[in-house]
């Protein structure tokens, strides 16, 4: 790859980013501007920003690689992302959130929940959970981005991590949510065009839609024995019912990530950035198309890369990538796409990481500055925007320090853990706050605590993917998982923790006095 050309493309991209960050900075005058973009965001920008913050590099490279190994079953994740992550999120959750958020004058997710139930305790509790958990998630995305820069520019990992963090920090701190959302729109646009191009080129290379699919279907007999034992039936088939891979795909990836998106604080806050319900209606149209193209197209191209590699080298995609799932998509692009496109795709991956990271930095900074410090020390509210900016810096430093310490190979797992814990902790309480007037503040606190404790218990003692590397269960009980009977070690924590947190919310609400701040 020509480093000069790549460097030039990245410099132009960074100049555009700096310009949009500056525009956001000029338009940010108040705390409401900094935290919510002044509640006047254009629906197109809101929808693309939501999608870009949602889809990180691991969703593109990681899940694209997973599709290359296990096949087109990942399209179900795209379906749930569109149905739950866009349609239901915007229309059912978003409209009420925007309306209530405006009525309550809430600027963040913790403040929204706290004011909804008239409880500062809830606001500080949720803010503390976000500020403790989110730096870990941000750190894994940071590592992913820095590793990517390290490999492309052949520079030291620590230099890459510092450089990457400083760039994002600059526009989050200066431009606030306005600057971020403008930049998200640019980044989302690059991601959209790249994924569109990849799928079109893949079909052109492989002999059209029917020809490519048929060729992949015909490769079913080439599935390696190890994968066949796990339930792999070919790249154009869903895994065998009840098999190891069926449980992982269905509960962990499709349900976990698909439903987990509904209660992500950094996404929920975007509903409150628009002026009226009309903007959300328009954003649904844009968001649905964006998610289909950005996720569905890369999963399909990932699965079809097997046909390409088999024709070119006689190998499966995973074999051509030397057994590294994360290398499949970059290798496929390098081998199958024109050289100029590879440069553009690098920007798409940088964009995916930067848009997700900026939303994380902003959310954890506002949780500390606005919700924790602003509630515990009300005098700080007079300098709200300055305090929040300082808190963003603090959150970024914490994430960066964690990023230096975390081991490699943790990106996909860290993302899935955060999505799962967020959904179990916040989703029942959020639904109760929006739709069930009988929900009480006490029940919300118990539900959030239950979701967190149940998720952590499952991660440490039940779910093999996390409990085995953590080693706590092994140290205490002499085995990797508490229940070794199939399929319990494969059931994603969200499947247990989310219903449990929901049941606690209902039971405690019915058992405690109705003390809600307002009826919805």
């Amino acid at each position, binding site marked *: 790859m020509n480093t000069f050309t790549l460097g030039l493309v990245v410099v132009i991209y960074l100049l555009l980013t700096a310009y949009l960050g500056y525009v956001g900075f000029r338009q940010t005058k108040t705390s409401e501007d900094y935290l919510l973009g002044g509640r006047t965001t254009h629906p197109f920008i809101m929808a693309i920003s939501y999608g870009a913050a949602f889809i990180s590099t691991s969703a593109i490279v990681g899940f694209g690689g997973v599709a290359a190994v296990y*096949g*087109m*079953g990942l*399209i*179900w994740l*795209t*379906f749930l992302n*569109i*149905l739950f992550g*866009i*349609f239901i999120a915007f*229309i059912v959750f978003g*409209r009420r959130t*925007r*309306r209530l958020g*405006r*009525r309550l004058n809430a600027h963040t997710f913790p403040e929204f929940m706290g004011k909804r139930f008239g409880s500062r305790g809830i606001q500080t509790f949720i803010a503390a959970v976000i500020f403790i958990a989110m730096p870990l998630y941000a750190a894994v995305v940071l590592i992913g981005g820095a590793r990517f820069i390290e490999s492309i520019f052949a520079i030291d990992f620590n230099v890459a991590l510092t450089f990457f963090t400083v760039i994002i920090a600059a526009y989050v701190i200066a431009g606030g949510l306005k600057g971020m959302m403008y930049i998200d729109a640019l980044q989302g646009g690059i991601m959209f065009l790249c994924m569109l191009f990849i799928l079109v080129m893949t079909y052109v290379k492989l002999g059209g*839609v*029917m*020809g*490519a*699919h*048929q060729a*992949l*279907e015909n490769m079913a007999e080439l599935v390696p024995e190890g994968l066949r034992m796990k339930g792999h*039936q*070919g790249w*154009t*088939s*869903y895994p065998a019912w009840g098999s190891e891979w069926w449980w992982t795909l269905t509960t962990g990836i499709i349900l976990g990530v698909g439903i987990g998106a509904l209660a992500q604080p950094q996404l929920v806050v975007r509903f409150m950035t628009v002026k*009226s*319900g*009309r903007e959300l*209606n*328009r*954003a*649904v*149209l*844009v*968001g*649905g*198309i964006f998610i*289909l193209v950005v996720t*569905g197209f890369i999963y399909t191209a990932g699965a079809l890369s097997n046909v390409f590699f088999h024709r070119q080298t006689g190998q499966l995609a995973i074999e051509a990538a030397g057994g590294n799932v994360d290398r499949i998509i970059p290798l496929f692009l390098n081998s199958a796409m024109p050289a100029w496109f590879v440069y553009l795709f690098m920007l798409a991956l940088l964009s995916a990481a930067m848009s997700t990271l900026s939303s994380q930095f902003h959310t954890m900074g506002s949780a500390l500055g606005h919700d924790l410090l602003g509630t515990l020390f009300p005098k700080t509210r007079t300098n709200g925007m300055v305090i929040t900016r300082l808190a963003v810096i603090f959150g970024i430093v914490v994430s960066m320090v964690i990023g230096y310490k975390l081991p490699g190979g943790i990106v996909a797992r860290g993302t899935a853990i955060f999505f799962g814990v967020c959904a179990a902790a916040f989703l029942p309480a959020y639904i109760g706050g929006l739709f069930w007037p009988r929900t009480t503040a006490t029940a919300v606190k118990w539900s959030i605590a239950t979701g967190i404790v149940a998720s952590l218990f499952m991660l440490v003692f039940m779910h093999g993917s996390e409990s085995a590397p953590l080693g706590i269960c092994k140290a205490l009980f002499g085995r990797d998982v508490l229940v070794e009977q199939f399929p319990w070690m494969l059931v994603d924590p969200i499947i247990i923790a989310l219903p449990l947190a929901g049941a606690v919310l209902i039971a405690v609400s019915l058992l405690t006095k109705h003390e809600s701040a307002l009826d919805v």
Partner: protein
Amino acid sequence: MFGINSCGIWLGYLLAVLSVLLCVWYGAKKWNKDDDSAADDNWDSAETQLNENL
């Protein structure tokens, strides 16, 4: 369908496309509609009234 025989897969694609069409249809149909404006106006007037009374 489109060279894919497994119903577990083409059903996934079909539902993904249908869900996008649902988003497009809804967004286009409600492009200029704001079902929430009446509620917003009511809250605004109620709040103004409340502030005046206070």
